[in-house]
C-alpha cells in the first residue's frame, strides 16, 4: 500500500508544516514516509509544495504523481495538474477558480485559517479523508506553540471534510521521522560537538537553527560570526584550544573557507565542515538541488594535504556519518567535509535512529619530554596537547614548520613534513581499506546491470533498481575514495550507469580518475530531485 499527497500553496501559509504534520501522524501509525519540500527563494507568496509519500514498506525517494492534491490557490492547481493520476482526489480552497478533473473537495482553507495555521486545516481535511482518528492528529499538534488555536482549526476541518478511503494503522513503527539536517545536528552532538559556528546559508541553515534552538539541552555553544571566513577561522581556533568545533554552509560560503581549509591541512587542525550543495554555480538556484560541488570539495584549498569527505544520502546516514566525521577529524587531525545536498538536508525520512554518544579520545601527548606539536611519527599523526597544559608549548603554524612548529624554509625539513602529511593520507586510506561500509549496495544484488550513484539519488536508485533489476552501488566516502571496494562491486558488470545531478558529470570524472568507465549516464540538472518516474522512464527508454 502506497500513497502520495501533494500540498501546494504560497510561502508563509504553512505548506511545509502541513506536510510534516501529516507525515508525523502517518509515521505514528506505522508508515514509512518520505517527504520532499519544494520552495522557491522568497518569504511570502510564490508557490511552495510538499510531497508526502508513504507506504507500509520503507521508501526513500520522491514521486511526481500524487493520489491526493491539496491546492490552496489557483497557481497550485496549474502547477500540479500534470501530477494528477486518474482518480486523484483534489482538495481545493473554495476560492480556487481553476478547473480540475475527478473528485474534488472544496474547503475554506484560506477563509477560516490564517498563515501557518492553515497547516492544521490541511491536516484536518486529510486525516478525515484517510479516516484516521482525530486523536492521532491532536497528538502531533500538541507540540505546537499555539496548540489551542491549531486544535480548533484542525477540528473544524476534520469535522467538515469528507472521508475518501481508510488508511489503516500498520504494524511496526518504521522509525523516526527526521530530516537530513536534523541527522547532521544530532550526529554532531553525539560525536562530541562543543561549538557550532556558522553563517546562515540555504540549505545548511536548518542545522544552525536546530542547534541554536536546542543548545542548552545539548550543552553546546552556537554562534553566528560576521562571515564565513570569520567562521572557519573561529572553528580552527576552537579546535586548536581543544574544543570540537564544526560549521555548515553551502557552496559559496565553502568557497570562502577554502583558504582556511588549506590552513587546517597545514596546521593539522581537526575541523568539520558541513557542505550542503544547492543549485549552482554562484547564487544559482538557492533553494533547489545539485551535485556539482563534488570535485571542488575534493580539491579545494591550495597545496597537497589529506582530507576526508563523507557523503550521506539520507537522514540516518547524516546522523551516523557526521558523528563519525567528528571522530575522524580528531583521530587524524584533518579537515573532514560532510557533503550533502538540498534534498538530503531538507527532505524528511523515516528511519530507525538509535542515538548514542561516540566520542573517541584522540592521540594525546603523554606529558613526557618536550612537547612537539608536529612530532614526526610513522603514521603521520602527532600527539595533541592544548594550550593551558602545564609544561607544553603548543605551536601551530601555517608556514611549513619543524616538529616544534617553528617556521622552516629548509628543504630537508620541508620534505620531512610533507612526507609526514602524505603518510597520514596513507594511514587514513588504510583505515578505510577493507571496510565493507565504505560502499553501499542495494537494488537487485545479482544483476549485472549496475546503477552507480552518490548522495541524494540513492533512495530512488535503489527503488528503481529493485523494480527494473539493477544493482545499485554508492560510495559513502568520496575521499579516501573506496576504489577497490567499488571495483569489487562493479566486477563483472555488463552495464554501469552513472546517475548524478551535475551537468558536467563530476561524479563520472571522479570515477574516471580511479579508472572506472561507466557505459551510460543519467544526468539531471533542472535542480529538482530525481523523481522515481524520471529514472524509470530513462531506464525503460534504454531497454527498448
Amino acid at each position, binding site marked *: 500500500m502506497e500513497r502520495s499527497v501533494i500540498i501546494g500553496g504560497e510561502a508563509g501559509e504553512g505548506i511545509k508544516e502541513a506536510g510534516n504534520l501529516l507525515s508525523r501522524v502517518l509515521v505514528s501509525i506505522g508508515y514509512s514516509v518520505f517527504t520532499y519540500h519544494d520552495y522557491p527563494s522568497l518569504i*511570502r507568496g510564490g508557490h511552495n509544495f510538499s510531497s508526502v509519500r508513504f507506504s507500509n514498506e520503507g521508501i526513500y525517494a520522491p514521486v511526481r504523481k500524487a493520489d491526493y492534491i491539496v491546492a490552496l490557490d489557483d497557481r497550485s492547481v496549474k502547477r500540479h495538474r500534470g501530477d494528477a493520476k486518474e482518480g486523484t482526489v483534489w482538495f481545493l480552497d473554495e476560492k480556487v477558480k481553476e478547473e480540475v478533473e475527478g473528485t474534488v473537495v472544496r474547503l475554506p482553507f484560506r477563509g477560516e485559517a490564517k498563515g501557518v495555521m492553515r497547516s492544521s486545516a490541511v491536516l484536518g481535511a486529510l486525516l478525515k479523508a484517510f479516516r484516521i482518528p482525530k486523536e492521532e492528529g491532536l497528538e502531533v499538534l500538541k507540540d505546537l506553540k499555539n496548540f489551542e488555536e491549531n486544535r480548533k482549526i484542525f477540528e473544524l476541518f476534520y469535522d467538515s471534510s469528507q472521508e475518501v478511503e481508510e488508511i489503516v494503522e500498520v504494524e511496526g513503527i518504521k522509525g523516526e521521522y527526521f530530516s537530513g539536517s536534523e541527522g547532521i545536528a544530532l550526529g554532531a552532538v553525539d560525536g562530541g560537538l562543543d561549538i557550532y559556528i*556558522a*553563517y*546562515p546559508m540555504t540549505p545548511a*541553515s536548518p542545522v*544552525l537553527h536546530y542547534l541554536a534552538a536546542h543548545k542548552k539541552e545539548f550543552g553546546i555553544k552556537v554562534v553566528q560570526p560576521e562571515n564565513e571566513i570569520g567562521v572557519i577561522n573561529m572553528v580552527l581556533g576552537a579546535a586548536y584550544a581543544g574544543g570540537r568545533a564544526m560549521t555548515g554552509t553551502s557552496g*559559496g560560503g565553502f568557497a570562502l573557507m577554502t583558504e582556511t581549509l588549506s590552513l587546517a591541512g597545514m596546521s593539522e587542525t581537526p575541523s568539520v565542515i558541513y557542505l550542503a550543495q544547492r543549485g549552482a554555480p554562484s547564487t544559482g538556484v538557492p533553494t533547489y538541488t545539485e551535485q556539482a560541488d563534488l570535485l571542488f570539495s575534493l580539491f579545494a584549498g591550495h597545496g597537497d594535504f589529506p582530507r576526508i569527505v563523507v557523503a550521506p544520502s539520507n537522514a540516518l546516514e547524516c546522523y551516523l556519518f557526521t558523528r563519525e566525521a567528528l571522530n575522524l577529524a580528531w583521530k587524524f587531525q584533518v579537515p573532514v567535509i560532510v557533503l550533502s545536498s538540498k534534498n538530503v538536508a531538507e527532505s524528511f525520512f523515516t528511519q530507525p535512529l538509535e542515538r548514542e554518544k561516540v566520542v573517541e579520545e584522540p592521540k594525546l601527548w603523554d606529558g613526557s619530554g618536550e612537547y612537539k606539536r608536529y612530532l614526526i611519527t610513522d603514521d603521520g599523526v602527532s600527539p595533541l596537547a592544548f594550550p593551558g597544559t602545564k609544561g607544553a608549548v603548543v605551536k601551530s603554524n601555517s608556514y611549513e614548520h619543524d616538529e616544534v612548529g617553528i617556521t622552516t624554509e629548509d628543504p630537508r625539513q620541508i620534505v620531512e613534513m610533507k612526507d609526514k602529511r602524505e603518510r597520514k593520507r596513507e594511514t587514513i586510506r588504510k583505515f578505510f581499506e577493507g571496510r565493507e561500509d565504505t560502499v553501499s549496495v542495494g537494488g537487485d544484488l545479482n544483476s549485472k546491470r549496475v546503477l552507480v550513484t552518490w548522495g541524494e539519488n540513492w533512495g530512488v536508485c535503489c527503488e528503481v533498481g529493485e523494480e527494473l533489476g539493477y544493482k545499485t552501488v554508492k560510495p559513502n566516502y568520496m575521499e579516501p575514495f573506496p576504489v577497490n571496494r567499488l571495483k569489487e562491486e562493479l566486477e563483472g558488470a555488463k552495464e554501469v550507469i552513472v546517475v548524478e545531478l551535475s551537468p558536467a558529470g563530476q561524479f563520472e570524472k571522479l570515477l574516471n580518475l580511479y579508472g572506472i568507465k561507466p557505459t551510460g549516464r543519467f544526468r539531471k540538472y533542472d535542480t529538482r530531485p530525481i523523481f522515481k518516474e524520471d529514472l524509470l522512464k530513462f531506464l525503460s527508454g534504454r531497454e527498448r
Partner: protein
Amino acid sequence: MSGVNLKTYAENTWCPGCGNFGILRAFEMAVEELSGEIPVENFVLSSGIGCHGKIVDYINLNSFYSIHGRALNNLQGMKLVNDSLVCVGFVGDGDIYAEGISHLVFAAKRNADITAIVHDNRAYSLTTGQFTPTSPSHFKGKSTPEGPPEDPMNPILLMLSAGATFVARGFAGDIPHLKELIKAAIKHRGFSFIDVLQPCVTFYNTFPYYRKHCYKLEEAGHDPTDFNAAVEKAKEWDYSEDSEDAKIPIGIFYQVEKPTYEERV
C-alpha cells in the same frame, strides 16, 4: 519624464507591505526626475543577495546582480573603466555590514564615486530571519533564540569614521524624503552612503516604531558640513534603543567635497 519605463516583467516576490517597495518607488522616482540630466543607459545598479537584492530584477536598467556582500566592488570596477556610468548599489544590512563590511569601509576610505543604498531591515530576511549587525540585542532570530550576544553596530558612525563624504539615513516609509536623499546621493561626487531604515514586515516590523520616532535633520537645523555635529547626531540613536522617547534622525548627516578615487587613480 514619464517616458522612462522602469518596470520589468519579473514577478515581484516581496511580502505585501515590505519596506522594500518604498525604496523601489523612491528610486524609480529619483531616476525619472534625474533622467533629464543622466541618460538612463548610464545607470548601472548592483545588488547583494537577500530580499533587497531582488530590486534589480524589478528595474529595467543595467544591472549586475552580484553575490552576497560584493556589489560595491563590482561597481567600483565599473566606475574605474567607465567614468560616465552612474553606479548605484542596493545592498543589505547582512550583506554589507557583515559579509561585505571590508568593501564598505574601503569604498568610503577611497571616496569611490558610487552610491550605496543599504536596505537596513536589521535582519537576514531571505534566509528566514537571523540577526544582523544592526539587530538590537533583543532581536530573537533563528540562530539566536534569546537575542544576539552582542550590541548592534552604528553604521552611520562607522561611515563617518571611515571617511565617507556623503552620509545619510532614510526611511522606506517616507518615500518623498527618501527620493530626495537618493537624488542627492547620486549627484554627490564621491562615495555616498544611505542607511535606509527598511521595515521587514515578516521578521521585524519596525514600521510603527520608525513612523513615531523618525525626525528630519534638515528640519532640525542640522549643519551637514559639521563633522562633529554629524557624530553627535549619529550617536543620538544607536540601533539598540527601542524606548518610547527615542529620536531617530533621518536625512543627510554629513557631506563634504573631496577628490574621488577615480580622479586620483
